[in-house]
Each structure stands twice: as C-alpha cells, then as structure tokens.
C-alpha cells in the first residue's frame, strides 16, 4: 500500500458523527487504533434529527457504565401509548412500568434531544482518543486498485487515507452510493418526518401526562392522523419540552399532494392531542428522511476497505409496534468497529475479511431483528394497517360505547357491518390478518 504523511493516514475513518459513527469511533479508539471521525455539521449533532427516543440504554451501558448519569438525557420512558385514531376519537393501548429497568437503572429508553446527546457521545469518542473533525463534508471515496483507501473532504488537499472506512453518513448515504453498495431509493421506501419541539413547564408536563418525577412517556399514533397519507405520528415528553411530529411515506405524500406541515397542524389540532400540547411554545422545527423499508432497502454492507452502518445501512426498524433507530445504529456501528479492529489486527482489509461484519451484526441482534421483521415494513407502511384499521377500531369503539336508544349490537355483527360498509373485501381482510400474524407472531 502507498504510504501517506502521518497526519493524513488513519487506521479507521468514520464518516458521520451520529450514534452509529460516534459509537464506532469510541470502540476503535479504545482498541488503541488511530481513528478519524468526520462530521459535516458545525458540531456533532448539529444536523441530526430523530423523534427522539433512544432505546439503547443497555447497549451504551456496556460501553460507558451508568452513562445516563453524565449524558444529557431528558426523561426515561416508563409509559408507552399506542393510539388508534379516527378524526374525532382515539382508542389507546397504555403500557406502564414503574420499575424493572424502565424507571430504574439500567432503564429501557430515554427521550433525548439529538443535538445535545450526539454532541456528548462524540465527545466521549474524542476523550477515548478519536480525532474528531467537524465542518468536514465528505465528497467521495478514494480508491487504489479497486479498494477503498480513504475519503475526499471538500477542502483543499482534502484527501485522507484510512485502512478501513466506516460509512455512518445517514439515510441516503452518499458514501454507500459512491462505493456502489447502495442503489437509489424509491419514494415508497422513505418516509418524511416533520417534528416540532414545544417548550412546556416541567410541572405542567408531569401533571398533564400523569408522570411521577422525571418519568417520561412515548405516544405513537396510527389512523386518521395523516389523512390518507401512509404514516403515523408521535409525541414524546422531554424534561421541559415535548417532541412531536408526523411521519408520512414520501410516495403517498406526493400522490395525495399533502404537505407534511399541514398534517402536523392537523395532528396538533386533533381532540386527543390538542389538550396535551396546549400552551407549548415552539422551540424547534425540523424535518428528516427515514429509511422505513428495513431489510428491503439494506445495501451491500461491506466492500474492500469499507463498511456501512446506521441509517446508511437502513438499520431503522419502523414496524408499527417498533419505532427504533438509534439503538440499531449504535449496535451496527459497534459491529462495524469490531470488524475494523479485527481487520487491522490481521492487516487485511479485503471484502473477505470484512465479511465478518455480517456475523458481528448477527451477534448484536441487528440483522436477526431486521430479518425477523422483514415482512412488517412493507405491510405496516401500507394504507390499511396504518390508516384504515386503526380508524375502524376507533370508530368501532365509538359505536360500542354510544348509548342512543338504538338496539345494542354485539361486537361481531358490528364488525361485520363495518367491514361491509368499508371498501375492504373479506378476502383482503383475511390476507391482512395472516400478514399481521406473519409479521409479528412468528
């Protein structure tokens, strides 16, 4: 291999300082290797957006014991609500857990504000010895004899060399495409999330959401919220703010000619949501693409000299009951780091050596989870499960509870009538029941 000036040559170059990239850089640095973490934003986290609940507490706890004591977390998530909505009603499934790792260490998940959290995580990598460079936009990969040997940063003399490049540059990964690992995405594989952070007094948050002390809640909404756009909505409690947003599949946003912010306004005005957000003062507005098709949009994960992790590899589990990304990002980043460390020990950076990445991903339950739920996204992101059935559930409950002098109907005839009235064919319904079962039950 060609040699380059010492300060331009690294063992590992990690592109993107999100949860995947910072975790990878942290692990590689701890192994005593020379690692460069490149970030396009002014600081790590400046451009990162998600819901954001971080369900990877246990994963991070292995790296940094009792990490929540020093990290900028908002509230541990001890309650989760899944609500099915019609335009005027809502039926919710409410899960509460007061102890057993939800409200106590090591916790299950935390709401976080990404700019703060990601900045902290990158600082941990830096403290472990990683070289963190911000305001560094990566334009291309460098190749020698067909092997990827580094990246080009958009600056004068921007070539920088690394034995392994780990691409953690997010959804629509530029590097994965440049390396020929990822194809262009279809609009139906991506969702657009728009999000607001509303400032609200902590005391009001605790009262309004029935929370004790610093506990938090995560709401997810399905049904009529997004009108006929395939998608859902969320609302999370932070310490003194709420994160809420609407997620809509890009293709159906385009087809239905809906603007995401209109959906967000509708969501905030829904009778089940409006009392929760009342009095909130707008602090932030952001939007981001989400790779929602899981297994189907997974790129080739490695090539000679390069690995792909995090959203760049499509490791975002959006499958109805689960809305998880940061934990998989972190796990895949760690799996990539382990692979890179092994390759450095062996002194061999061929695709063959790096193929250990697949095994590492399995060990960290990333690829196994995504494989298990491979049928979920295409179906969950479809119109019937995200919009029609939740709405029918909400309407059905309305009819069950309604007392208006008319004869009471039992549930089955009621359901039968609702199905008959809707556009769903009985065969379709049976197929959907089978698909739900296949997606979640076995």
């Amino acid at each position, binding site marked *: 291999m060609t040699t380059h*000036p010492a*300060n*331009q040559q690294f063992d590992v170059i990690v592109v993107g300082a999100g949860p995947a990239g910072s975790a990878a850089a942290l692990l590689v640095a701890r192994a005593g290797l020379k690692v460069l973490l490149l970030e396009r934003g*002014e*600081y790590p986290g400046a451009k990162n957006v998600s819901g954001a609940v971080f369900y990877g507490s246990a994963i991070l706890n292995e790296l940094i014991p009792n990490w929540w004591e020093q990290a900028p977390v908002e509230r541990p998530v001890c309650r989760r609500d899944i609500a099915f909505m019609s335009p005027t009603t809502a039926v919710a499934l409410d899960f509460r857990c007061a102890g057993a790792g939800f409200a106590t260490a090591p916790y299950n998940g935390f709401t976080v504000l990404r700019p*703060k959290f990601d900045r902290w995580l990158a600082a941990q990598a830096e403290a472990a010895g990683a*070289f963190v*460079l911000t305001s*560094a936009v990566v334009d291309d990969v460098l190749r020698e004899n067909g092997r990827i040997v580094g990246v080009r*940063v958009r*600056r*004068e*003399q*921007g*070539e*920088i060399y690394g034995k392994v490049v780990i691409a953690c540059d997010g959804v629509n990964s530029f590097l994965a495409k440049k390396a020929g690992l990822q194809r262009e995405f279809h609009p139906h594989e991506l969702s657009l999330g728009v999000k607001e952070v509303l*400032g*609200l*007094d902590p005391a009001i948050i605790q009262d309004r959401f029935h929370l004790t002390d610093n506990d938090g809640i995560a709401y997810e909404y399905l049904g009529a919220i997004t009108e006929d756009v395939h998608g859902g909505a969320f609302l999370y409690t932070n310490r*003194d703010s709420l994160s809420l947003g609407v997620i809509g599949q890009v293709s159906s946003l385009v087809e239905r000619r809906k603007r995401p912010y209109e959906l967000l306004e509708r969501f905030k005005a829904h009778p089940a949501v409006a009392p929760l957000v009342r009095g909130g*003062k*707008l*602090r932030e507005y952001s939007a981001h693409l989400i790779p929602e098709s899981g297994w189907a949009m997974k790129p080739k994960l490695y090539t000679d000299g390069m690995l792909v992790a995090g959203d760049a590899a499509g490791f975002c589990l959006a499958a109805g009951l689960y809305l998880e990304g940061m934990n998989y990002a972190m796990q895949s980043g760690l799996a990539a780091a382990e692979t890179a460390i092994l390759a450095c020990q062996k002194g061999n950076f061929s695709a063959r050596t790096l193929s250990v990445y697949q095994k590492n991903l399995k060990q960290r339950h990333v690829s196994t989870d995504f494989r298990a739920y491979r049928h979920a996204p295409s179906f969950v992101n479809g119109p019937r499960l995200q919009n029609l059935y939740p709405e029918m559930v909400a309407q059905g409950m309305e009819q069950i509870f309604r007392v208006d002098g008319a004869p009471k109907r039992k549930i089955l005839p009621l359901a039968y009538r609702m199905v008959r009235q809707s556009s769903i064919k009985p065969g379709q319904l049976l197929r959907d029941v089978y698909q739900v079962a296949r997606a979640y039950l076995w």
Partner: protein
Amino acid sequence: MRIAVCLKYVPDPSTIEVDPLTGMIDIGRVLYMMNPADESALELALRLRPPDGTVTVFSVGPIEADRLLQDALAAGADAALRVWDDALGSLKPIVTTTLLAAALRVKALPDLVLCGGHSVDRGSGTVPALLAEHLDWPVVTDVTQFEIQSGRLRARRRLARGARAESEVTLPAILGLETGLVHLRQASLPNLMRVKYTPIPLYGLEELGLSPQDLHFPAMTLHEVMPPRPRARMMFTPDVGGSVQERVAQIMSAGVAGKAGKILESGTPEQQADAIIAFLCQRGFLEQPT
C-alpha cells in the same frame, strides 16, 4: 513586516434564540464564531504578509476562544496568543484594549495592527482608537482599502453619507477595518488537522505584567434612558435687512442651507480635542466638564 491581528470571539447572531418559557436568551444553543470584521482583517493581513513577514493573532477571551485562534492558524497565521484571567467578567473595551496592548508589548511590538472596526455583539467600535491611545500610535478607522509604501500607509475610509476620505500615516499604525471587505480563505484539510489540538499560549495578568488595579477604570453607570426626541424646529423668519430679491430667495428656500462642517486644522491634538469638546458642550451633546 510583522503584523498583528486582533480577533474577537463573538456569538453567532443567527444562533441566538430566546427561550419561550423564560424569555431569556438560551445560552446553551448559542454558537460562537470569529467576528466577521476581524475575519476580513485576518485575510487582509495574510495577503499583505511578505515572505519574511509574520502574522500573529491575539484574542482576549475564555478557553473557547482557542478554537478561533486555531482556525486562524489553520488559515495561515504564524502564531497565536490568548489573553484571559478567570477574574475577568464581561469586558469593557477599555479593559480589552489594556490587555491587548500589554500582550502586543509582550510579543515585541509589531509594525501594523489590524482590527475589525466593529464587533457584532457589543459593536462600540472603540477598540482601534483605545488601542492607539495605549500604544500612542496613529489610528485610521472605517478603512476599506489600504496600501503601504516605504513605511507610509495610505488608507481609504468610508465616512457617513457616502463621503470618502484618504488618510496617510506612518508605521507603526493601527487600522480599524470595515466588515465584509474580503472573505477569509478556507483552510486546507492538512492545516485544519494540524491545528486541531495545537495548544494556544495563554497569558494571564501576571504574564502581561498587569495587576487587577491596572484594569480598574471608573465604572460607567447608566443614569437614565430616554427615547430619542426630535430637536425643536425653529420657525424660519427671513432676515429683514437684505434686499427684496434676497428675502424672496430665503423664503422660497425655506431657510434650508447645507450644514456647515468645520475642520480643525491648527493646534496640537490636545487643543483640537478641547475644541471638539467645547463644540459638543455648546450644542448640548455633552455636559460642561466641572
């Protein structure tokens, strides 16, 4: 030639947000940057630097200001120096310039000091002049262009109402430069990486040979704030003494005449300053010195 550039660490105005809950600026969100006028001063210094010359950058600020000095090194400055003492709080221009003047002396006085004319935070625009007072050097402010020929500096100034002026001074001198004259060059990647963890020498009061008393200036106190009030209009009455034509012309023009400026050309600087103060007192802009 040895050039010094003074850089100020300022909040980026585009990141200043008011927390809707408290009504206060959310300090946690503010990002800091190099003052834009100082940035163009640095670029001009780098362009002016002859092969055997040096550019040294100075900043008075907390540890976070190191990043800005590192950026200046990455862009091509030869040396950097930061002045700070934890006892320093919010800096008045007079304190900043006392510290800067001491720091310039510690590093052996340069031939030219470039400052940004105004900062985006405080914006008093007094630093170049106060620094000149400390060093007893000539100063030219509002500079848009300058050139140096055999020890003399010729500067073009932008004045109010589109007026331009040219001044010539001998070196060593201090310039206060306008904002946005040139863009600071983008540092190359190797330079950026080289300076990332470069330690910046820190000078405290002791190293500068100053004591806290040296930084004690009569406190400026705010007595009263009044809204600006338009000056009373005087009804124009034509002079009865002149000819008919003159009086008609006076009435037709409603007494409008160009404001007469006065240029003080004679006397020592002290006498000229006294004349200016007397003028301002007479017009009611200053209180009579007691």
